[in-house]
């Protein structure tokens, strides 16, 4: 096994773990704000790790660039959408969860 | 026999599911969703059958048909949704009148 393949495997597994964590957070956290937190952090880092892992196998620099561009787009929209949904929820009067 | 037939059967299932919902629901918005799902079933059958080439490139003709189909479906959906809004403003609700079978 090539060294780059080894790193790809590690990165993809780590990415998959973050996706799993995001889903668990989505299912288990108590209110919309905490779920947002779990999901945006997890899927951004998860996708980032996956993109890095796949970029190691990319056939050209242009492809690496496209992969990074995809990740940046998701980062941008995910972060903004998280803000927008949280803002809308707050305006609706949904109380943050308190222990 | 390969998994393409699986997708074909899923396509048939989606078509029937959509048809059933189209008949049974009185809510107009749901009827529109049902028609869309029926359409997806048909597209699925077409594309799955187009991929039945052993290892070669799939048949491009059904692909082209499905692409036009997707765009036509979205424009028809937009028209139907506008119609539903219109019905709601005129009648006050977006359901079919209740049917009495007696």
């Amino acid at each position, binding site marked *: 096994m090539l060294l780059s393949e080894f790193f790809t495997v590690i990165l993809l597994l780590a990415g998959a773990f973050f996706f799993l964590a995001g889903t668990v957070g989505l299912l288990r956290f108590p209110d919309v704000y905490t779920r947002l937190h779990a999901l945006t952090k997890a899927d951004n880092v998860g996708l980032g790790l996956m993109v890095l892992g796949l970029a190691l196998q990319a056939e050209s620099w242009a492809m690496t660039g496209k992969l990074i561009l995809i990740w940046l787009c998701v980062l941008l929209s995910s972060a903004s959408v998280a803000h927008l949904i949280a803002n809308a929820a707050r305006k609706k009067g949904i109380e943050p969860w308190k222990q | 026999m390969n*998994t393409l*037939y*699986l997708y*074909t059967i*899923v*396509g*048939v299932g*989606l*078509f*029937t*599911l959509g048809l059933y*919902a189209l*008949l*049974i*629901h*009185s809510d107009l*918005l*749901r009827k529109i*969703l*049902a028609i*869309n*799902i029926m359409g*997806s079933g048909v*597209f*699925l059958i077409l*594309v799955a*059958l*187009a*991929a*039945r*080439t*052993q*290892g070669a490139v799939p*048949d*491009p*003709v059904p*692909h*082209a048909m*499905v*692409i*036009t189909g997707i*765009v036509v479906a*979205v*424009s028809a*959906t*937009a*028209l139907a*949704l506008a*119609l*539903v*809004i*219109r019905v*709601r403003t005129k009648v*006050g*609700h*977006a359901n*079919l009148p209740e*049917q009495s*079978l*007696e």
Partner: protein
Amino acid sequence: MEAMTSLPLMTLMQLLFDTLLGFALLWLGWRALASPDLFQAIVLFIAFGLLMAIVWVRLDAPDVALAEAAIGAGLTGALLLTTLARLEAKNRSKSALEKKHKVWLMTENVKLKTASFLWLMVILMLLVSGLVYAVLTLQEQTFELQMLVSKNLESSGVSNPVTAVLLNFRGYDTLLEMSVLLLALLGVWSFGGIPKPHESLPGPVLNMLSRLLIPLLIIVAGYFLWVGSDAPGGAFQGGSVLGAAGVLLLLVGWRLCIRFVGLPLRIILVFGLGVFVSAAVVLIFLGRQFMEYPPSVAGALILLIEAAATLSIGITLAALFLVGRPEFRRHK
């Protein structure tokens, strides 16, 4: 794809993946149609569209996947959510629970209800078995059409077979399809004005997001238009992405300047169809058949037609989203 990988483990994994995806599709379709809450149904339908795009990827139909991704992820969801908002805004007094899940066949007579339900089931079962029988006993792929396409691909002016079929071999389909788009828009406009939704100003975050995303979307639409001749992409994909950019603009609160709403907008809407038809008609005068492109200029012609079509499809889709004719001052 199946034939290329001889590894049994790979085949097994594919089978697992496909089975899961197929069941997920059926389950999502069922839940989207049966769930009591309309909003929930729409979210499930959006997820259904996402999975459909993954299926197209699996079936090696990248052109279809691109169109489905742009329309399913961008346009249909936004259309449905906006319509739902309009419907709910109309009568807020009626709670969702009251009107929840009304179905046809609402009758007090239980016997009659059961009987009609059973009949429906029998008919549907017959339909399913007939359809399954039909698709499973279809003769193995005859390669005639595909052969015809690949044999004539060189003279079509493009090297992406799907684009060749759409714009050259079966240009009629595309022509009529664009007319359908226009007709749908005319239909929507004929319903007259629809009260505007209450709109607040976009906050700084949404403002920044749209400022970054919309130029990117327009560039990507151009990219799909350009690569469409020899890679997946083309007028429909580019047009859908452009349409999504338009929808985003409209959602943020942007409206077309009143000066451009009248004639200029209408010219852009029919531009694609106009270029398509005039190219075809001009060819008749040059002694060829309707829509028979001479191979030497076919590539350039197709690019020209596709560029016009992308613009028109994009603007038409955005106008369809707006619902109701954009108002313009009538001259008294």
